[in-house]
C-alpha cells in the first residue's frame, strides 16, 4: 500500500497542510514542535481509525478550531487509488469515509491499510507492564484477522459486563442466582478462548520473523525468543497437560481444550474474584515473556539490548504483516534515528533501501542524521516548518556511492 498524498486541516499544529509522498523512502525534517509527528499520527489514524498517541480525538483538534479533517489518497499494489477521509466535529464525533462511503463500524477499516509505526515509545514494549505487549499483540493480529478483532471487541464488552456483575454482587454481598454469573462466564470464555488460540498461534509464527529481524539490526548473536503462557501450571496439571508434555508429546492447542482450561482457572479464582469484584482470569491479563538467550529482557537486558529488541519486534511485525497481507504495510518511523548509534542507523537504512520494504515515512529533527548514512539511496525530503507549513525540500538528495 502506498500513500500518495495527505491533506490535514486543523489537525494539531496543521491549519491546512498538503503533502505529496514518494512511493519509497520519505523524510520529514523540521524543528521540534513543527508538526512532523502529527503527520504520522494522521496517517496512522487513516489506517487504524485512531491515534497512536492519545485515545481522545478532542486532543488532536487544533486549538479553537471547529473541526478537523484528514484526507488521504492511497494506492494499492494494483495501482487502484482509494480515498480515505477522517472528519471530527466535537459533540458529533468522528466519521470515516473510504472511497466516499461512510463506515458503519471503524473495525471495517482495520487491516485494509496495513501500517507499522516505530516510535520512541517502542522501548516500553520490553520495559513496561504487560498492557503494552497486549496492545502490540492485538494491533498486529487484528490487522491480519477481522475475526480476531470481532472476538476482541466482544470480549471487551463481555468483560465489562461481567465485572459490573461482580461489583454488584460484591456490594449486595449475595449471589442469589448462580446461573447469571455462569452465563457471563460462558460468554467471556467463548470469545476469550479464540483470542488465546490466536495469540498462541501468532507467537509461534512470529518467532522466526523476530529472530531474523534481530540478526539484521543487532551485532551480538543472542537468540531472541517469545513465550506465551495464558494459564497457570496448576490448571495445566489438572488437565494432565504437563505430563503429556514431559513425555515428549506435543500439546495440541484447540478451542475445546482452551475452554476447559479457562473454566478450571475461573473456578480456581472464583473466591478472589468475588472478593475483589473483578475478572482475574483471561486474555485481558495475558503477558508475553521476552528473552534473550535464557534471560528475560525486562530484568536483565542492557539499554542497547532493549532498544534492539524493541526495533526487532517492529521490524518483525512489518515482515509478518507483509507475509499475510496482499499489500506491503506503510512504515512510519518517528524520531527513531535521533538517539541511535551510527552503526544501527546504517543497518536500518539498508533495510529501508532494500526491496523488502515498500513505502516508508521517517521524521527527524535534522536531515543530516539520515542523509549522512544514505549510501546512494534516494530519499524524498520534505521540510516541515513551525506552524505546520510544509514544503518539499529544494534539494532532492540522491547521493552516489
Amino acid at each position, binding site marked *: 500500500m502506498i500513500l500518495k498524498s495527505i491533506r490535514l486541516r486543523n489537525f494539531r499544529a496543521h491549519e491546512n497542510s498538503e503533502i505529496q509522498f514518494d512511493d519509497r523512502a520519505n523524510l520529514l525534517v523540521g524543528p521540534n514542535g513543527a508538526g512532523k509527528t502529527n503527520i504520522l499520527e494522521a496517517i496512522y489514524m487513516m489506517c487504524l481509525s485512531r491515534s497512536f498517541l492519545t485515545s481522545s480525538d478532542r486532543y488532536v483538534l487544533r486549538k479553537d478550531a471547529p473541526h478537523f479533517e484528514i484526507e488521504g489518497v492511497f494506492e494499492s499494489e494494483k495501482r487502484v487509488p482509494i480515498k480515505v477521509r477522517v472528519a471530527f466535529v466535537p459533540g458529533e464525533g468522528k466519521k470515516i469515509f473510504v472511497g466516499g462511503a461512510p463506515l458503519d463500524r471503524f473495525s471495517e477499516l482495520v487491516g485494509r491499510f496495513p501500517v507499522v509505526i516505530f516510535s520512541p515509545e517502542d522501548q516500553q514494549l520490553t520495559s513496561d507492564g504487560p498492557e503494552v505487549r497486549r496492545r502490540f499483540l492485538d494491533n498486529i493480529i487484528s490487522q491480519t484477522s477481522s475475526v480476531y478483532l470481532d472476538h476482541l471487541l466482544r470480549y471487551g464488552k463481555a468483560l465489562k*459486563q461481567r465485572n459490573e456483575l461482580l461489583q*454488584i454482587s460484591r456490594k449486595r454481598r449475595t449471589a442469589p442466582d448462580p*446461573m447469571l454469573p455462569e452465563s457471563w462466564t460462558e460468554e467471556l470464555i467463548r470469545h476469550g478462548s479464540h483470542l488465546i488460540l490466536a495469540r498462541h498461534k501468532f507467537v509461534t509464527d512470529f518467532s522466526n520473523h523476530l529472530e531474523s529481524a534481530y540478526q539484521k539490526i543487532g551485532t551480538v548473536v543472542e537468540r531472541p525468543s517469545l513465550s506465551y503462557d495464558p494459564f497457570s501450571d496448576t490448571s495445566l496439571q489438572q488437565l494432565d497437560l504437563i505430563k503429556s508434555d514431559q513425555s515428549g508429546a506435543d500439546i495440541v492447542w484447540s478451542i475445546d481444550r482452551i475452554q476447559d482450561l479457562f473454566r478450571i482457572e475461573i473456578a480456581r479464582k472464583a473466591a478472589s474474584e468475588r472478593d475483589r469484584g473483578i475478572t482475574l482470569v483471561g486474555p485481558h491479563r495475558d503477558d508475553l515473556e521476552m528473552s534473550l538467550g535464557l534471560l528475560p529482557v525486562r530484568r536483565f537486558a542492557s539499554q542497547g539490548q532493549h532498544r534492539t529488541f524493541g526495533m526487532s519486534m517492529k521490524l518483525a511485525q512489518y515482515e509478518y504483516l507483509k507475509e499475510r497481507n496482499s499489500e506491503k504495510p506503510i512504515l512510519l518511523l518517528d524520531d527513531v534515528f535521533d538517539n541511535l548509534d551510527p552503526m544501527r542507523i546504517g543497518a536500518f537504512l539498508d533495510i529501508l533501501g532494500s526491496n523488502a520494504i515498500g513505502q516508508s515515512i521517517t521524521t527527524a529533527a535534522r536531515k543530516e542524521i539520515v542523509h549522512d548514512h544514505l549510501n546512494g539511496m534516494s530519499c524524498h525530503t520534505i521540510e516541515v516548518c513551525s506552524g505546520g507549513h510544509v514544503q518539499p525540500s529544494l534539494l532532492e538528495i540522491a547521493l552516489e556511492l
Partner: protein
Amino acid sequence: MQFTSETVESLVDQFARLPGIGRKTARRLAAFVLKLPKSEVEQMAKALIAVKEKVVFCSVCFNVTDHDPCPICASSKRNHEIICVVEEPNDVMAIERTHGFNGVYHVLGGAISPLDGIGPEDLRIRELIGRVNGKSGAVTSEPMVKTKEVILAVNPSVEGDTTAYYISQLVSPFGIKVTRLAQGISVGSDLEFTDEATLTRALEARVSV
C-alpha cells in the same frame, strides 16, 4: 441560531429527545408541524396520547396490544407449541413481516446487561418459564398446550448471547427443544463481500443439505 418563539423551541426540544433525531432534524420537524393544519396536528397529538392510554402489555407474551390477550396469543390458528423469544415488540413485527412463522411469541423487554442495570428479574424470563412449565400464572385464554420448542430470536450481541445462554439453561431441564436463530451471510449479498467475522460464524453454523 434560535427560533424567535419559545413555544417552537420547546417543541424542538421534544423532537430532539427522540432516538436518531439530532437538533437539526428536530428543527426541520418543528418547522413542518408549524405548517400543518391544526386538525392534522390534533390527530398527531391524539395518537401520541392514545399510545399511553390504550396500549397495554399482553399478559401472555408481553407484546404491546390494545386488547389483552393480544390477537396472536388469542388466535386458534397459531401454533401454541412453539414460542419465539424476542427482546422487543419491534422484533415481533420484524418476524411477522416474514409471514414464515406461525407460532407464538414471548417478549422479554430487553437483554441481560449489568452495565445498564438490567438483570433477569427485570425481564419477562420468569413468565417464560411459567409458560413452558404449563403453569402460566396470568389469567389468560391461552389454550393449555405443552411447549415443544423455544426459539431464541435475541440479537447476536454479547448481551443477546448471554441472555440466550441463560434462558437455554433454564428451559432445557423441561426437556423442551431450544433453538437459536442462525447467524451468517445475509440473503442477497455476495460471499465475496461478506466480512470474515460473519463468514466464520456462518461456517461454524453450517447445515447439511
